[in-house]
Structure formats: structure tokens, C-alpha cells
């Protein structure tokens, strides 16, 4: 199943980011002029572990979403950058390489050893709780409030997505 830029823009719209600003912000994220820099490669690498394997188009989706989420929100950007640095640091320490260079199994193990699979999210908490908040739940929220993420598990109009008032009337075979 293909994730699209449109999914990312829809997910952004669900979080209050004006779509035009999100789209425009992509270039800002790419050229990393905003500080601190969000490590896009690590973020995409995490998303590749979190999202179902049948999903394609993860990089474009994550870049677009993250760009929109962090543009003009320096505190949020700093929180995300800091949490990604924690992920990368642990990957270096435990698996001798940057997170994005690890295979899927070692990425998964890094996140689990961090405790990001079980710790309650807390933007002001210890590093694992911040990773859960700024990275894991951020990416899962984007995906499972998007039409593609919802459709993968049975609803084309997931909670958080403004999908109109026709879908609730439709049966499963419509």
C-alpha cells in the first residue's frame, strides 16, 4: 500500500498545520538551515520499523509530515531533534553504527532496548519517554490518522481525519 504526499498533508491538516505551510517547509527541512537540525534519515529509519512492511512511500510521507510539524515550532523541533539524537546515540553504542545504517532487526532492538515500546510518552520525561513521545507516537499518530493508515486496518476515515459524513453510513461491502 502506497503512502503518498497527500496522506502526509492530510495528517498535517489534522494537527492544525496549514497544508501550504507544510508543503513549503519541506525545503527548509531538507536544507537544514533551521536549528537544531532534525535528523531526517533517522526519523525515516524509525518509521520503516514502526509502519507495516507492506507500506511504500515512507520517506516522502515522513519528510513532509515532519517538516510541517516542526516548521515555526522551535520547541517541538528541538524536542524531536533531541529524541532522535538519543536514538542514534544508543544505536552507535549498542550496534556500532548510526541508526539509519542498521538492518531492520537491529533498529527494532535499539528501540526496544531503549524502552520505547513500553514506556508511557512524556515530552518532559526521561530520554525513553521523550523518544516515545516525539518519535514513536509522533510517527504512529501521523500514520494511523491518515486515510492510507486507516484503510490498512479497516477504516478509510480514521479518528482525527476529516473524512466527511458519508463513510459512517456505508457498509463493509459498499
Amino acid at each position, binding site marked *: 500500500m502506497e503512502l503518498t504526499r497527500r496522506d502526509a498533508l492530510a495528517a498535517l*491538516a489534522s494537527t492544525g498545520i496549514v497544508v501550504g505551510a507544510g508543503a513549503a517547509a519541506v525545503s527548509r527541512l531538507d536544507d537544514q538551515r533551521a536549528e537544531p537540525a532534525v535528523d531526517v534519515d533517522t526519523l525515516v529509519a524509525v518509521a520503516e520499523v514502526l509502519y507495516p512492511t507492506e507500506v511504500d512511500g515512507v520517506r516522502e510521507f515522513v519528510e513532509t509530515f515532519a517538516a510541517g510539524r516542526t516548521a515555526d515550532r522551535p520547541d517541538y523541533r528541538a524536542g524531536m531533534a533531541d529524541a532522535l539524537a538519543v536514538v542514534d546515540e544508543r544505536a552507535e553504542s549498542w550496534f556500532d553504527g548510526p541508526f539509519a545504517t542498521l538492518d531492520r532487526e537491529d533498529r527494532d532492538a535499539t528501540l526496544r532496548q531503549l524502552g520505547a515500546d513500553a*514506556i508511557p*510518552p512524556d515530552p518532559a520525561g526521561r530520554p525513553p519517554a521523550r523518544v516515545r513521545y516525539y518519535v*514513536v507516537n509522533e510517527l504512529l499518530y501521523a500514520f494511523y490518522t491518515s486515510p492510507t493508515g486507516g484503510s490498512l*486496518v*479497516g477504516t478509510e476515515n*480514521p*479518528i482525527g481525519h476529516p473524512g466527511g459524513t458519508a463513510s459512517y453510513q456505508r457498509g463493509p461491502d459498499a
Partner: protein
Amino acid sequence: MSRGDVDRTPSPRTDVCIVGAGPAGALVAHRLASEGYDVVVLEAGPRFDPANRLERMERHIRPSHGPEDVWDMGGPRDAYTNAGEEHYPLNAARVKGVGGTTLHWQGMVFRLHESDFERRSRHGVERDWPIGYDDLQPYYAEAEAELGVAGADDNPFAPPRSEPFPMPAFRPSYSDSLFADACEELGIAMHSAPNARNSEAHDGRSACQGYGTCKPVCPSGAKYDATVHVSKAEEEEGARVIDRAPVQRIEHDRSGETVEAVVYATPDGAEHRQEARQFVLAAGGIEIPRLLLLSRSTQHPDGLANSSGAVGRYFMDHLFAGMGGELDAPTRQKHVGFITSESHQFYDEVDGSVGPYKLEFLNYAGPSPVDVALSTESEAAWGDALAEEIRDTYGNRIAMGGLCGQPPRAENRVTLNPDVTDDHGNPVPDIHWSLGERERRTIEAANETQAAIMDELGVDVDWTTGPEATGPAFHHMGTTRMGTDPDESVVNPRLRTHDLDNCWIASSSTFVTGGALNPTLTIAALALRAADAVSEAL
């Protein structure tokens, strides 16, 4: 004027001062301002920026935020205590701010039944209202027009109406059609549920966009909230609304018969005194009695407007009864956050032992995909295993809800707790709330009907909310009740306090009994009735 420069000083030559900018206060302000009166509204909470609604929705969905965070409730400003047998989660049950609790309500709008006004005469229980359905019927129609209600005249159990709903009803859901087959077998009639929510573009607001998070936040503005009438009152009719201005006490003249002013605090630490010719209390069923009790004086040693001793007493809520489980087929839940079908068939089968109840066919059973994904309680953390777990968890859930009536009892009440104070040093509300046998039996009756429907439908029921697990529906009623006898009630049938000649109450606090229907349309109808009476007095 920038945010920091907001003028919160009192207005001169004010005709009407209204305490509270929720639905009752907003409607009274709009109505009286449109008649040319100078109106000032004092609101304890802030103005919320509509641009932040999606951020508030995200707070609702993401588990790192609690329910009180969505609308910034809690803390010293909102402190309260519980003295009753049952815990009452007050700050989950209200919103302080311009728009009031309609910011987080679900938007269900029903007229009380004729029987609700005549409970004593018809069934020998509870108490009669001093007014009847006929007295409120024209105000119900006005309230539906003001709020913008989507509905259909297909409810055979509803009281008579003389005009169509302002908007067509939302169509039944797919899961309604599943329930319909079972209900038909059992001889239970289903019908539409009126919503204060746009089924089409209306009154300058869009049709519902389907975010699915109606309660506690509608990002699109399709759900009515009282900011609609606050904006109209301010921008079109010249009313003045002062936010972050909690009223501390009410002051009367030497005779003790006329209110002179209310004293309110502002964020800079100052206190101000707003004078007016007439005063309308519209701060809800908890803060209105609290303010009257806080305003005791030499002439009124038990609190203002409390010569009857009824201020704060007869606190009622509706009790939730529910049941849910899994069906061996897709149920298409969580596309929208509102209800499209109900059954009021059993509502008027009231007798000496069982009160009214209504049944709701929910469109939002079970967890949503994003709920499962973000919860660290889920078995799978992420990846294919998480997607599989969501497919297993979401998709086949189905549930019913229902509201059950609670009779007025003097011991259920709001008092002041002198040992705990708020951010201004005022004693906080102390909630005394308990359940009686009558509402327990009513919940059991609702559960029995729900169980029959679930059984007929073939649902594997795995949760039931019965008398032991029930909780309040967050409808605060009865604490300044209406009546003709000043020894037994706080306001007269025109909603003026018996004791003070220029003090009015627009709130569910004036309800004599609560029925089992969501109260906001009746609050709105009473507010419009109060506005007429205040207008005549001016």
C-alpha cells in the same frame, strides 16, 4: 489592542450583567443586546483561540495528555472536593472559558417530555415543575433555531412540535441498520437523534467534516458551541464580554432586596465592581449555588437567595447505563463521534419504582486504530504485529448506551468547603453525591433492554455498565430549583430569585426534575424565557 492590553474594567451605565459565557449566558446576552440593552458578560475562564482546536484534538487523542488538558481545566482555579458516597469528577464534567461546557459537549439536543414536568401528578413521585411543556414549547422552537439543530420528526415518543427542525437529520449509520433488524424482532422502535451539529452548511459554519472527536472538541466548528452566540452578541449587537474575570461575590443594597453589583477579579490581581440594573447568573449548576453561598451577608446569613435553604440542594445528574461487545461481522465504528439513532420507547414507562431512561445506539464503540497504536498497553509495539492487533481490536466492536433519571434528593448537594480554597482564597465547592434505589432499578431496567437487543443481534457481550459501575453524564441540575413557594424553591417560574428583585438564574440549576434527556436544549429554552422576563423588567 494586544492581548496584554485587554480592558477588564467595569462598564458604566450597564443594563444587564451576566455571570458566565456558556450557552445560557451567551443566549441571554445575545437576546438582550439585540433588543438594545447594554450588556456585560463576566466569564471566569479565558477566550480560547479557534485556531488551536486541532492542537486540542491532538491532546485528546495522544495518551500523554489527560482529559482535563484538552480545555486547560484543573489546578487551583478549579479546585473542588467530594464529600459524598460517590466520587464526582467535576473538572472532567465542565469547561471554564468563553463557550463554557458546550466546547466539550456532544451536542445532543432533546426536548423534555410532557411527563417530566408532571412527575408527581402523573406518577406520585419526585415533584412537578411550576411550568409545563406548553409553557416551554415556543422557547424550545426558538432554541432549536438559535443552536441549529439537525433532526427529523420521526420520534413517536417525543412531545408535540409545531415546526420542522432547522436542518435535515443526519442519516442513520451502518451500525444503526444492524441494530434495526434486532429491534424490529423485539418490537423496539428506533428513531433519529437530534444533533446541534450542522448536517449541511448553516449559520456561517460548515457541515460536519467527520473528524470523529466531537466530544471533547470539534475542530471544524460544525458542532454548535456557545462561542457562536458570544460572537454574535459582541460583534453584531454590541455586548461586552470580559474573560478571565471570575466573580467573587454578589453585593446587595441596604434593604437586602436588590443586587447592586458583582465583584470580580482580574488577572492583574485587581478586584472590580460591576454595577447593573439586572443580574443574570448563568455559571452552571455548581458555580451558581457556590457564588450564592459565597455571597452571604447580614441580611442573608445562609447565602444569597437562600431563605428556602434550597441553594445547592437537590443536585441531580443522569446515570450512564451501557453494554458492548463483539459481533462476528464488521460494524464500521468510529467514523463519526456522534449518535444518529436512539429509542425513547421506555422513557414514559415510569412508575413508583423505576424512573425514565433512554437508549442510545452508539457509533463509536471500542478503540479507534490510533488509540491502539499509541497505547503502550497494546501487546504489539509497532510494525506488522501492531497493524494485525489493530485489525483484531478494531472493526467488530458494537455498543449501546443510555441515560437514566435521578430523582431530586435534599442530601445530594453542593456546599462550600471552608478548609480548601481556590486561587482567590474562596472556599471550593464540596460535592455530596450518592445514588438511591430508584436510579439503581432504572439502570437495571435499561441494562435488561440492552441485553435483549444484544442477544437478538448475536453480540458476544464483554462489558456492562450497571448500577455498580455507573457514572454521571456530566449534567449538573437542580441546585437552585424553580417553584412557586419561596420556602421550598430558589427561583420563581419566571426564573427570578424569590429573595432578590433583580437577580435571575438561567441554568439547569433551576430544573425541578431532570428526566433522562440531555439538558442543554432545555437550558437554552429557559435562557430565552429568562431573557424575555428580564427584558420586561428593564
